[in-house]
């Protein structure tokens, strides 16, 4: 029997839904086997990482708070990825967004209220976009590869954060610990359900995917992004400017990452220290692919990845594996989803073995 790949006329809608789910299930299965081989209770580890956060209701708030930045960043990145603009510097844009929000907080002093809060959020978006505008400008002006430039700038952003929290913005009452002063209570984002940590940013992360969905499916802008990504030549003939698309994709990607940073700061952490950059900007790339670059997909995938983060902490105490182990599962999910692309674009045909054929076809 032979296996043959036939290119599909159009990407399979069914496979686009089936493959992410299959990837998660396959990851869990492989996880059990690999962990058992390493001498760790694999079944327990996989249950704790993937299921405990969903089954234990007291973990839901952790999942929601962790999912929010992942969803928001992934929404922005999906726009770029669809248009073949590869912004992999979201981590840096996230950091700069948070720093801009922190700057507003510091400048505001003891003043608080909705105006300060809105200013912080806007500053985060502007900051993230500004950081992303550097790779955009270099790409459109000089043809600089945005993958490399946006990645490099992430590590510059890390140093900017380290400098600010260890120097000019260090909390004077913080016992010389490199961190900003915590926000005033009326500067932080409102909590949605009292007694939990679920802040306004979570609501934004739930609403935004639907906004992006409308934008992508109903607007000329969404059409432009899709055409530039899938048929660049047709897009040029149709009058869509490639440079403009790069700018839009980078500014939206950066703005969303900056927004996520500002919300994480003002809603969750309330102060910035050296531990603030947690790799959300990189994990969001997994989210956008697992969500198949679809806004609603990003919403669901963001929750899945947040579950593995929270579950990783659970497994740390139950089966005593390092926190970074959740990364093995996150990476496996991405490996499988990327590999399964082949089922979306191709039809797999099983052709019975050629035993019956005595004479080879001419030309073979």
């Amino acid at each position, binding site marked *: 029997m032979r296996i043959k790949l036939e290119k599909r006329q159009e990407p399979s809608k069914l496979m686009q839904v089936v493959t992410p789910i299959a990837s998660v299930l396959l990851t869990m299965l492989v996880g059990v086997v690999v962990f058992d081989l*390493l001498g*760790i209770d694999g079944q327990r580890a996989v249950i704790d990482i993937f299921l405990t956060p969903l089954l234990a209701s007291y973990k839901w708030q952790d999942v929601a708070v962790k999912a929010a930045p992942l969803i928001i960043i992934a929404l922005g990145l999906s726009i770029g990825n669809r248009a073949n603009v*590869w912004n*992999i510097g979201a981590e840096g844009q996230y950091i700069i967004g948070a720093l801009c929000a922190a700057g507003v907080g510091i400048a505001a002093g003891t003043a608080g209220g909705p105006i300060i809060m809105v200013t912080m959020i806007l500053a985060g978006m502007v900051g993230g976009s500004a950081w992303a505008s*550097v790779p955009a400008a*270099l790409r459109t002006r*000089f*043809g*600089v*590869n945005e*993958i*490399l*430039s946006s*990645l*490099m*700038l992430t*590590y*510059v952003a890390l*140093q*900017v954060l*380290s*400098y600010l929290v*260890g*120097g000019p913005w260090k909390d004077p009452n913080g016992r010389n610990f490199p961190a900003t002063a915590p926000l005033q209570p009326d500067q932080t984002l409102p909590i949605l359900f009292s007694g939990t940590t679920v802040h306004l940013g979570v609501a934004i992360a739930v609403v935004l995917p639907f906004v992006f969905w409308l934008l992508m499916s109903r607007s000329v802008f969404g059409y432009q992004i899709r055409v530039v990504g899938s048929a660049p030549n047709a897009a040029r003939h149709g009058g869509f400017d490639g440079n403009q698309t790069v700018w839009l994709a980078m500014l939206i990607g950066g703005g969303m990452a900056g927004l996520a940073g500002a919300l994480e700061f003002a809603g969750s952490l309330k102060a910035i220290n050296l531990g603030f950059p947690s790799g959300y900007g*990189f*994990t969001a*790339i*997994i989210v956008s*692919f697992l969500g198949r670059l679809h806004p609603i997909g990003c919403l669901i995938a963001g929750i899945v990845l947040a579950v593995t983060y929270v579950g990783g902490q659970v497994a740390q105490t139950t089966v*005593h*594996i*390092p*926190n*970074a*182990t*959740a*990364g*093995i*599962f*996150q*990476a*496996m999910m*991405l*490996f499988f989803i*990327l*590999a399964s*692309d*082949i089922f979306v674009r191709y039809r797999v045909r099983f052709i019975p073995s050629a035993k019956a054929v005595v004479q080879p076809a001419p030309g073979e």
Partner: protein
Amino acid sequence: MDFLIAAIITIVGISTPILLAGLGELVVEKSGVLNLGVEGMMLVGAIAGFAATVLTGNPWLGVIGAAIAGALAASLFGFFVLTLNSNQVATGLALTIFGTGLSSLIGLSFVGRIVPQFGSVFPPELARDPLLKVVFGYSPVVYFALIMVFAVGWFLKSTRAGLILRAVGENDLSAHSIGYSVIGVRYAAVAFGGAMAGIGGAYFSMVITPMWAERMTAGRGWIALALVVFAGWRAGRLLVGAIFFGVLMWMELNAKAGGLSFLSFAQYIPSQFWAAMPYLMTVVVLTLISMRDRVGLNAPACLGKPFLPAT
């Protein structure tokens, strides 16, 4: 004088791992593949080298183990990217996350153990004199890295296989139509890149601090990626660039410790400035390279693009 000698020895130590990983990534990128998983492969190499040394008691076997582990991790990347045609950027990032997690997990049973440092192989009498120490005082891995600079440079420039590799990276469809196996060449390049990154990672766990700690390569894989671009995809410049980045990182270490008093201007510059410099300068160099004409440009034309022959 003692200060200068100590500085040189430190800088060589900082430069070696990024030089090793950078040389590997150079060959990978010259074949047209962008593997962003360098950091992950270095960590896999770091734990594999350490574990192999603990289990066999032989640091040479440790280095070989690191190379094999790095090559295996890279082949995993190769399978997805080359055989299944998955997106290179995303797969590379996944490899880094995967390698970080896997090394932490395997390293769990090696935390707190120590191996003898894989130091100088020359008789100690030779390295007693401080001036001779600058020449003879290093781990064999350092000399290996230096030899590899010339080996990789010679391979890419003067051998038939190197020419084929560059052709594959420059125009995969043409190379394919002449009859070269694009995928085969790229697999070999990716595995070589992984082996070199693995040895670079092992330098941390076997030479710099002969022990295992989670994430001990501390982001040097990303610097190695920057280095390849900074060097304009040339092996010779990679050596110069590695030393230059080494100096910058040495400045950072000193600024952190408040030890730059010998340079009056340097006391006003925060350590973060030095830490950011390699990345900033890479962006600048990348821009300068991109501004120049395509003629004389060394960046492989097919970098990061999947190979899709018309069937």
